[in-house]
């Protein structure tokens, strides 16, 4: 069988974060991580590798998809691999969006790997085979082995089991299967009910996915008497980073006094976020936290007051659990301060 692989600029050997705007290219054969993938699959040949920068894929998703589908139009392939994307949010998003488009256009299975905390999992697990992966690139070999093993399985036509047995994230697709020992559905349901009544463990045949949604907070039709706070996950901090907020996988947040500031002075403030090229943010921190624009609206009387402190953490590699905890802590602080509403900027 033939396969095509998708990699970002790091793993496609273009360069680091400074190359994140790299436009999609198609390469004959393998390069970087796709070479290892190829070597792990005796029955599958990786004939081409697509490389695209994470920023380009994130900011010009439609364009990236269009160009990549164009590259693949005249190629023969049976499988498409994307990633592994570990916990890299932009990369996971790109693998998912491009993988989904490839699957829809060419009807081939798409195999990826992402850490469970990668937002790409939630967004694309229904469309692709996404296997649980490590948090960072040190898991490259391990994650590729998992992807390769499944690719081999598809290539050699072995029968597939359900998601929990194959190991990929549940896609929510139901297949009809014949049980080795036939027990009719009514009997299985009654058996399950009896177990439930006795308080014994049982496995549902129809798990209902839970989606954690928050009811939208009510509109504030008139802001003129309201205090608004700025919150960011973009990592803008006083340049000495007094609270030692981590540049990635943050567990800390800070609040800093802006009551005397009209704009963020340079170089007194900068970003410590390790997930994007800091050049633009360090030159003008207001590009990430729009203090100047908020001051302008405050002066116009659009709202009463910009709260004296802004809140900051770093949103790269940060787990959803930590982000939620920091969100709750910040909310508590905002309550004490009598803040009415929030503008949050994310990078």
């Amino acid at each position, binding site marked *: 069988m033939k396969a095509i692989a998708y990699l970002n600029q790091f793993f496609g050997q273009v360069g680091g974060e400074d190359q*994140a705007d790299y436009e999609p290219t198609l390469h004959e054969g393998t390069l970087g991580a796709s070479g290892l993938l190829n070597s792990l699959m005796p029955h599958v040949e990786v004939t081409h590798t697509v490389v695209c920068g994470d*920023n380009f894929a*994130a*900011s010009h998703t439609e364009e990236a998809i269009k160009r990549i589908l164009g590259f693949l139009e005249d190629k023969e392939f049976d499988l498409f691999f994307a990633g592994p994307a570990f916990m890299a*949010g*932009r990369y996971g*998003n790109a693998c998912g*969006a491009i993988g989904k488009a490839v699957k829809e256009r060419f009807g081939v299975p798409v195999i990826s790997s992402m850490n469970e905390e990668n*937002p790409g999992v939630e*967004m694309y697990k229904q469309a692709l085979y996404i296997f649980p992966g490590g948090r960072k690139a040190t898991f490259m070999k391990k994650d590729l082995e998992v992807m390769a093993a499944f690719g081999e399985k598809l290539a050699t036509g072995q029968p597939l089991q359900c998601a929990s047995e194959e190991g990929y994230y549940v896609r929510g697709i139901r297949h009809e299967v014949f049980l080795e020992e036939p027990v009719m559905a009514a009997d299985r349901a009654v058996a399950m009910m009896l177990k439930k009544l006795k308080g014994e463990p049982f496995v549902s045949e129809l798990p209902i996915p839970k*989606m*954690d*949604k*928050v009811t*939208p*907070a*009510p*509109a*504030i*039709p008139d*802001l003129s008497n309201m205090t*608004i706070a700025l*919150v960011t*996950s*973009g990592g803008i901090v006083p340049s000495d980073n007094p609270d030692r907020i981590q540049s990635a996988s943050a567990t800390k947040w800070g609040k800093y006094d802006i009551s005397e500031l009209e704009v963020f002075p340079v170089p007194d403030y900068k970003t410590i976020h390790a*997930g*994007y*090229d*800091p*050049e*633009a*943010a360090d030159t*003008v921190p*207001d*590009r*990430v936290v*729009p203090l*100047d*624009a*908020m001051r302008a*609206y405050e002066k116009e009387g*659009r709202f009463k007051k910009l709260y004296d402190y802004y809140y900051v*953490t770093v949103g790269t590699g940060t787990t959803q659990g930590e*982000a*939620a905890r*920091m*969100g*709750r802590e910040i*909310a508590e602080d*905002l*309550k004490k301060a009598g*803040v*009415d*509403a*929030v*503008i*949050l*900027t*994310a*990078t």
Partner: protein
Amino acid sequence: MAKEIERAGFTITTMCNLLNVAKSMGNNRLVQTVSVPYPLGNPQLSKEEEWKLRYHRVGVALDALTKDVEGYTVFPVKI
């Protein structure tokens, strides 16, 4: 993070680049930003143009606070 702040009762507008991610996270009021490294600016623009862009998008975010929404809602920007 935005979700927990909203859960605590604050009306909040999230300004971000990857709308799909925000959607999957359950954010409600959203305004799209320019890019990841410069959400509310663009080094390729003149200072005046950049200011206009930032002022406009922050204005849309403030407007969003004044509007009731049922769920995931993106407030469109003009620049």
